[in-house]
């Protein structure tokens, strides 16, 4: 007879010394792993719950300003450096790694309206209410020496914003006109004007670097080309846009933060209808900034919250708020895609995690594998009602909740009214208009 039985040599299954890892033989045969679906579901549920448990986005508070924070300037080369300007004309440079203010100086009389670093981050341009553009060195002066601007340019027009070109030595300011400047000259190379209204924000396109966009107080968004003598195009919305940000990856798209609680993402080639309307804020949106991946953006609002949106979704993925944060004026997404900064009226700059439940610090390989697995599970079971409910739930401040309810009621009422009007009028007289088309008044070329 030929006979063989399962006879395991324990040496192959038991570790020899305590210094060794345990031996864990695997067998991926599906029949040895029954109830795969339900077990995965429970794991996905746990992962979603843990995600909510660990969602503590607030990292730190950078205090030092003596008045409300008005604008941010991101350093293009250093992740740990950021400049902020305040309502009292003070500019502070922050060392974000150590969470301290490394340098501060009074740059302007009145508000600091805009801060821009040069291409390589060696100079800082600031504009203020005193109609001056000041140029500062990026590194702090030696001990005992005063903070003196390298150059001060007196502008003929009021200045409301500044943006630096991403590829050459030009920068642009906005105010009564849009002016293109060269770093080396004290006069603008060119001024561009369309209408008489004030332009309050300006932004260079990061990829097609000679294109820039402005928001004007006549509710319009104007596109310029710095090479041309005339503005390119203009689109008028129903309400004023406060800020504008270009998508750094799909550079033909930009998003504007609008006064009517919404954000609008436009395709420059088709300004007639926005690509997406982003809802959820309950008060005027004051600022918007894209993540460097171009997949998400963060928006600040007068309703004392900041929200993070997926660029292709119309509702926000997350909301950040604290009891002490007042009207948020400016936001920035760090260039390593991990943090979000917000500056608000009550003089503080806050640092948040871009992904609320992300673990900071060193992540070991096995931990990383586990996080990836949990992420995959969450995605796979995202549509299940229980999991969806847990993942979506956010605690919001009472005033936001009330405002949301109010807005919902208003909207419902409008819909009902429209439906009634439609019911009682001739067929086709009251057309259905999509939400996207409601907010754009006209496009001018």
């Amino acid at each position: 007879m030929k006979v063989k039985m399962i006879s395991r040599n324990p040496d192959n299954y038991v570790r020899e010394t305590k210094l060794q890892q345990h031996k864990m033989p695997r067998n991926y045969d599906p029949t040895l792993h029954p109830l795969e679906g339900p077990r995965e579901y429970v794991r996905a549920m746990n992962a979603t719950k843990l995600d909510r448990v660990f969602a503590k986005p607030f990292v730190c508070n950078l205090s030092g300003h003596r008045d409300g924070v008005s604008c941010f300037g991101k350093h293009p080369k250093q992740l740990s450096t950021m400049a902020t300007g305040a309502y009292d004309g003070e500019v502070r440079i922050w060392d974000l790694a150590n969470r301290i203010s490394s340098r501060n100086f009074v740059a302007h009389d009145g508000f600091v309206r805009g801060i821009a670093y040069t291409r390589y981050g060696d100079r800082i341009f600031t504009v203020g209410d005193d109609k001056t553009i000041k140029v500062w060195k990026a590194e702090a002066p030696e001990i005992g020496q005063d903070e003196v601007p390298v150059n001060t340019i007196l502008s003929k027009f009021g200045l409301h914003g500044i943006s630096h070109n991403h590829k050459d030595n030009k920068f642009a300011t906005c105010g009564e006109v849009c002016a293109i400047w060269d770093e080396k000259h004290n006069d603008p190379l060119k001024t561009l004007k369309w209408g008489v209204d004030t332009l309050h924000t300006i932004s260079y396109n990061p990829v097609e670097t000679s294109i820039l966009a402005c928001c004007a107080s006549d509710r319009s968004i104007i596109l310029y080309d710095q090479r041309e003598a005339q503005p390119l195009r203009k689109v008028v919305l129903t309400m004023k846009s406060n800020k504008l940000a270009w998508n750094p990856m799909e550079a033909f798209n930009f998003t504007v933060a609008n006064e009517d609680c919404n954000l609008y993402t436009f395709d420059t080639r088709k300004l007639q209808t926005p690509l997406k309307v982003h809802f959820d804020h309950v008060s005027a949106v004051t600022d918007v900034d894209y993540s460097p991946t171009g997949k998400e953006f963060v928006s600040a609002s007068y309703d004392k919250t900041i929200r993070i949106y997926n660029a292709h979704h119309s509702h926000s993925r997350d909301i950040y708020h604290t009891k002490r944060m007042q009207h948020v004026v400016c936001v920035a997404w760090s260039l390593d895609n991990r943090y979000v900064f917000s500056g608000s009226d009550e003089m503080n700059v806050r640092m948040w995690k871009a992904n609320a439940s992300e673990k900071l610090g060193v992540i070991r390989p096995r931990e990383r594998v586990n996080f990836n697995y949990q992420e995959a599970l969450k995605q796979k079971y995202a549509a299940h009602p229980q999991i969806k409910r847990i993942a979506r739930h956010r605690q919001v401040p009472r005033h936001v909740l009330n405002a949301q309810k109010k807005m919902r009621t208003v909207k419902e009422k409008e819909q009902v009214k429209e439906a009634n009007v439609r019911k009682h009028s001739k067929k086709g007289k009251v057309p259905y208009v999509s939400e996207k088309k409601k907010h754009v008044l006209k496009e001018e070329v």
Partner: protein
Amino acid sequence: MTKTAPKGRPKAKTPYKRYFEVEKDTEKDGGGLEHVKVMSKKRQNFTGDFVRMHNKPKKPRPQKALAKAKQEEPEPKPKRNPIPEELLKKYSRGEQVQPKGVKTRHFKEQQTRKEVYLEYATEQAARTELLLQETAGQLEADEGETTAEYRQSQIADNVDLQSSAKHFNLNMEFGPYQMRYTKNGRHLLLGGRRGHVAAFDWVTKRLHCEFNAMESIEDVQWLHVPTMYAVAQKSWVYFYDKKGTELHCIKRLNRVNRLDFLPYHFLLAAGNSAGYASWLDVSIGELVGNFNTGLGDIRLMRHNPRNGVLCIGGGRGVVSMWSPKVREPLAKLLCHSTAMTALAVDPKGQHLVTAGLDRAVKVWDIRMLVHDKPLTHFQLRLPANELDVSQRGMLALSQGTYLETYSDLLSGGGSGDGQRLPYIRQRCDAFVHGLRFCPYEDVLGVATAKGFQSLLVPGSGEPNFDALEDNPYETSKQRREHEVHSLLEKIPPELITLDPHEITGVDAPTLQEKIDAKRKLFHVKAPRINMKTRHKMKGRGGTAKAARNKQIVKDAKRKEFIAEVREAKKDLIKQHTTKEGAKGKARAPRSVLDRFRPKPPKKQKT
């Protein structure tokens, strides 16, 4: 009215020429675009790179050549290490989803991309087969012999020392025994009818505890860890730990006959002599289900490891399947025309094996309950009183003191079966009361009226265990770690359904459900209206008036509701009638020649 050409500029006959358009080459040029000679970079007043434009017209390929090329197209290169088809099938989680019905291009692409990953995952899993360390056991007869002839002593003599030590007999006098192995096959629990309980590591023969409960014992069962077990005693179920210390007395489970444990749900299932099936969640100590099955004394009970459903065999030859949260059986299966004597579910959860007093043993496919015929049917000389199926699909059955194993559940027989002889047979010295294959070992444990026997059945157990699932060599630290993890992944009892993949499927209402929902519309009741009248301080209110007002509101609401339902019903009826009407007037397909047919007579005006 006839259409006229729009007035104004006459239509240009030739399209306008654009300054940037490349002139089309004429035949005279001899085809092909001549390259414009550009001056060297320096001589031009231009700084930048030239972008080469490919505006050569494509030569039309001759059709025949193309067809030929297609035929000659070499086959895609075979992969370097191809994986056999059956291996891929083993690890596959089902067929690919066809992106045909997906609505948008985006999701279609997403789906196809996902399929690529899934296929890769299956492939990788199949490749791990190479890393498995052990091979399954086997027993082959010499020429002129059959495996059924071999005695246990012969087999034990011919295998290695370690394996031969797995064959042993225990003679005990506390009468008919029940036995269980742990899930990892390392520990053994014995319970004698006359109160004897013994738990030990049967591989090393190290005794954990042994005591007498001083009460009759019906059944024993390990819990989720090999340090705790449950014993169904005369009136209640008791929990003991490894040392024999009594941990709990579950008085809510009384007069229990059969115990079973669902490891992934942490449920201790019990069937009692009054016909109650109960599920106790051992992690929180609560009964998640406890109801009367109406089957009478439950003597045959096994759970299906594939989906956690409890299979209970009744005296009428019916197997019913139960879930703790549903008070009716999920399915019923008429297996025998006589009373059943034994029942077993295959560890993979594919087959159900039943035996009845009609001396038949039948194998059923419990994944496809629509078939009303068994897959296999063995007829024995005596009814089988105990059954079990091993991990690799061997069947063991006992008839009184005689015991047989078959090498395959479906075809039966042993190796070299000319006369359909069993694989191994054995005559025990006493009546067999319990029969279990040991997981991950080639061992069959037999509990008899006089003790316990451990028999060698080469080829019955799965040789390669997954250490993250069941580890026979686990240390106490690993055991604790595993316990915590499995507790975190405890499946809620609501998810016990016949199809375990239901949770991953799409929840689309079936046609039957849709029809039912529509039909329900005809039997809806008006909702009850609970109105609270405002408490008025002033005026001539009075209870009578308030009541009248209430009645008015209620009537109004009811009328409204009835009107709504009537409207809905009307719609429903309309839908169906139009469909039927259309069917009645089904027209023949129109043909070109129809116009030559005689016209139908016109209706006369009255």
